[in-house]
């Protein structure tokens, strides 16, 4: 296609003038239309990380057990016994807003491919979701579509979805977030990477045929939304989980031969980015014959074939002479495999159409000379006013029973069973800890071990203080892992922000990354993979900064796993930790008073580390009957959850001595607090163990009876049948969605 390259065409491709100048100097000539398209997707925010790369470089990525850090398709961590955990989180925000079912479904498909392309069998998924306010007219439709999409795809491929998050807030009205985490397990000596090696080796295309799906999809994900985005609608891809399932099985079978040298999925920017990235890693070139690319429709141009984001496709570099063998494995699974090119030694990305070279670009320059921006950043002016707000000014509620019921019956604090019941979470028969606890635990067959996984981020805290919020997301994730009995090992981060061209947004991102960094160093959890999603902004209104953290930990003996719910009557309840808290940034202040303001209670990373270490020691001694992180909703909500989130429901008699406002005592939020239950006989061991680590423990009361009763400084403040609380909690989402 020889469309003329005008200023308009360049602008349509989202390339700036200076970027175009760079293209001219790389090529030493004008690019043709197809080449322009290639640069446009490869240099889009989505593929090049041009606004974030500089800052991502500051994240800690190393530990003795890290096998592959960022840069590969997914992070790889050694978990012992000859196994590695392979994991990553990725966003599919914009596509899910436009077409929630297919957007979310293909999001699941994409992250699965990132994991099995490394040679790992995907064993679990988590979905971290943010929607607009419940009253927004589109919210219900989006929730329904996104959850069905994840369910439709994940269930069909047979990978359990074992947990996640769901948070509603007006800042997501025009930009929802759909972040999906995938965990895979592989043998340590059987890891594959996306590398293009050995001049003359064949390049094989496998999987679905290429259609006109999602052309410019990558560019769309990097462009701010406006009214015109309606027109970009046909760029949405449709997923085929059945083909994905076949692709997983065929790839894992093909990897058992030693015929594969490198393999990579075709994700954003499809064939172009997969082949360029593979050649880039190998320091080689790649030549493909566009006429050989399997296609779904007639009349497709090289431009379309190279930029299409059709799903369920992979690119393989094989050993010469072994291509038939591989193609036959794919054929057995009903999939197409075609040799479409070869590895070259000239360092060029070359595309040939009907015998003529139509694209020729130096591979190294596409990635190395990709623009990197050090965008200006500035602390938002509004932060002072927000942080200086005095939360003591708000009126205290009169009826704490009603306040508790209202909070626990809200969409953010209500039970998420409506969501995870639609996900097959027991397939593969390895889900030791089911969704509904702080972290879920997946057994590693053939060992005594389990892998604990969770995803966390409180965007409200990130909005009020992005540095603290970022650090808190890491701390909460690690704390949730520890509560389940796992030792936190490593994280993946999915950084969702607004428009990076705004200095305030840039500042939020820099601060959040700094917070993540500090927390990862302090807690010993390096970042091994991640994803950045920017321009989550509609008509100038951006989302709350949302650096979602996915974390994994190792449970040495799955028999010692701990869940968040109380196991019987007469258990003693303890609050572990310093009990620092504030109303600022709390769910209570937002839901009851409509305020999202104030100075949040800070995180002390040293305390956090000691708290988790001591908790894991107590779990190892098998004295902890239940452990539940005290996060959104504060102390009263956490105790209520402990009482009712298991198969059986228990009442409790709790008595708290504390000063300050009662609403802060009950619903204030702070870090490094955990509610545990133990047997009476273990009380001394517990108190001594935490004391030895410099962590406070306070006795709260006993489980039993039919009421949740909370006395504050000897005044009965809450007394409510636990079944009534449970009903409000259980019906929150079903009644909203009905």
């Amino acid at each position, binding site marked *: 296609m020889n469309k003329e390259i005008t200023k308009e065409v360049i602008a349509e491709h989202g390339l700036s003038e200076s970027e175009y100048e760079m293209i001219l100097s790389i090529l030493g000539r004008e690019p043709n239309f197809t080449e322009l398209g290639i640069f446009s997707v490869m240099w889009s925010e989505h593929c090049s990380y041009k606004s974030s790369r500089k800052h991502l470089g500051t994240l800690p990525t190393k530990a003795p057990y890290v096998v592959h850090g960022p840069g590969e398709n997914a992070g790889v961590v050694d978990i012992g016994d000859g196994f590695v955990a392979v994991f990553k989180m990725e966003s599919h925000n914009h596509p899910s807003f436009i077409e929630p079912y297919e957007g979310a479904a293909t999001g699941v498909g994409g992250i699965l491919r990132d994991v099995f392309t490394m040679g790992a069998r995907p064993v679990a998924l988590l979905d971290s979701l943010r929607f607009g306010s419940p009253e927004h007219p589109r919210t219900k439709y989006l929730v329904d579509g996104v959850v069905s999409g994840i369910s439709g795809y994940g*269930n069909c491929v047979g990978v359990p979805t074992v947990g996640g998050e769901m948070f509603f807030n007006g800042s997501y009205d025009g930009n929802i977030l759909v972040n999906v985490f995938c965990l895979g397990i592989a043998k340590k000596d059987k890891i594959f990477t996306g590398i293009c090696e050995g001049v003359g080796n064949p390049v094989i295309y496998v999987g679905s045929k290429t259609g006109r799906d999602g052309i410019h999809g990558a560019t769309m994900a990097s462009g701010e939304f406006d009214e015109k985005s309606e027109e970009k609608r046909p760029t949405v891809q449709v997923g085929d989980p059945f083909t994905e399932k076949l692709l997983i099985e065929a790839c894992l079978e093909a990897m058992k031969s030693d015929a594969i040298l490198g393999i990579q999925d075709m994700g954003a920017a499809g064939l172009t980015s997969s082949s360029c990235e593979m050649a880039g890693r190998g320091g080689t070139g790649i030549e493909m014959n566009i006429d050989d690319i399997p296609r779904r429709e007639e009349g497709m141009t090289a431009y379309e074939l190279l930029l299409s984001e059709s799903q369920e496709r992979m690119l393989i570099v094989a050993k010469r002479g072994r291509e038939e063998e591989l193609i036959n494995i794919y054929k057995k699974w009903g999939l197409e495999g075609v040799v479409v090119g070869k590895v070259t030694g000239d360092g060029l990305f070359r595309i040939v159409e009907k015998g003529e070279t139509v694209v020729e670009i130096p591979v190294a320059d596409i990635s190395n000379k990709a623009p990197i921006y050090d965008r200006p950043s500035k602390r938002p002016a509004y932060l002072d006013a927000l942080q200086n707000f005095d939360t003591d000014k708000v009126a205290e509620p009169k009826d704490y029973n009603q306040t508790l019921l209202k909070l626990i019956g809200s969409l953010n604090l209500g039970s998420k069973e409506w969501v995870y019941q639609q996900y*097959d979470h027991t397939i593969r028969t390895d889900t*030791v800890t089911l969704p509904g606890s702080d972290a879920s635990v997946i057994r590693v067959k053939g060992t005594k071990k389990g892998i604990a996984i969770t995803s966390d981020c409180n965007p409200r805290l990130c909005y009020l203080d992005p540095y603290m919020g970022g650090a808190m997301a890491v701390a909460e994730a690690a704390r949730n892992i520890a509560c389940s009995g796992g030792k936190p090992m490593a994280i993946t981060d999915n950084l969702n922000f607004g428009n990076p061209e705004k200095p305030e947004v840039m500042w939020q991102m820099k601060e959040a990354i700094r917070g993540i960094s500090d927390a990862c160093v302090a807690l010993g959890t390096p970042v091994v993979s991640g994803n950045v999603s920017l321009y989550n902004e509609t008509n100038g209104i951006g989302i709350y900064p949302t650096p979602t953290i996915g974390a994994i930990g190792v449970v040495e003996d799955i028999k010692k796993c701990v869940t968040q719910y109380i196991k019987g009557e007469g258990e003693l309840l303890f609050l572990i930790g310093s009990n620092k808290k504030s109303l600022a940034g709390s769910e209570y202040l937002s839901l009851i008073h409509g305020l999202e303001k104030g100075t949040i209670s800070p995180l002390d990373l040293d305390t956090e580390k000691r708290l988790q270490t001591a908790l894991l020691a107590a779990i190892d001694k098998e004295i902890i009957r239940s452990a539940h992180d005290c996060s959104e909703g504060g102390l009263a909500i956490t105790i209520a959850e402990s009482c009712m989130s298991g198969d059986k429901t228990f009442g409790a008699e709790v008595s708290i001595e504390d000063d300050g406002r009662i609403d802060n005592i009950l619903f204030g939020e702070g870090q490094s607090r955990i509610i545990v239950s133990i047997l009476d006989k273990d009380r001394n061991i517990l108190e001594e163990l935490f004391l030895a680590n410099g962590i406070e423990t306070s006795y709260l009361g006993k489980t039993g009876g039919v009421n949740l009763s909370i006395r504050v400084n000897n005044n009965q403040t809450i007394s409510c049948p636990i079944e009534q609380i449970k009903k409000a909690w259980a019906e929150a989402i079903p009644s909203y969605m009905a």
Partner: protein
Amino acid sequence: MKFGIVVFPGSNCDHDCYHAVKHVLGQEAAFIWHANPDLNGCDALIVPGGFSYGDYLRAGAMAAISPALTEIKAFVKRGNPVIGICNGFQILLESGILPGAMIRNKDLRFICKDTFLRVENNNSKFTNKFNDKKLISLPIAHAEGSYYADAEELKRLEGEGRVLFRYADKEGNVSNDTNPNGSLLNIAGILNKEGNALGMMPHPERSMESIVGNEDGRLIFESMIEAVS
């Protein structure tokens, strides 16, 4: 004894069934590939759950016309035990080995949760090890599990003791409230006329080890082993 586990494109509980009979129960197990099904040496078959052919068109419809089903039908005719679980049940229905059909769950959503099942007949090839156990708990995970058959067929199933499992509550009561998917008569599992083919929506292979739930599922496979020996 040797279990054959039939693998269709899109089957995804095949490995779980294999693990259940091979590693938990210590029996022989072999995967049977749909395209060249060789049932030689198999004493019993498991048609596992999943989304054969993506469940496109109708769940189980495309698997039901595959070459494997010709062999499975003959295997059933010879009197050997066959259990179809979830998608496997749907395949047995679509192929006519079992009567009736499956439609979408009443609320249209996929449901994954533990269910209690009342055992209606302790005397079959699949329940002979239950002794007087009348209630078990197994997980379900499906979107099309609402069993349908016309009134005459239902009468026949009831009359011949071929309804094996019904969705119940933890006391064993069967009612509308304990029906997760809209199945007629709360049916969760049925037998063929000869009593050697069982179709059930709940997943016994997921309840084999207490660390990941309970061990109620073992009883079903152990009954099959008993029936064969």
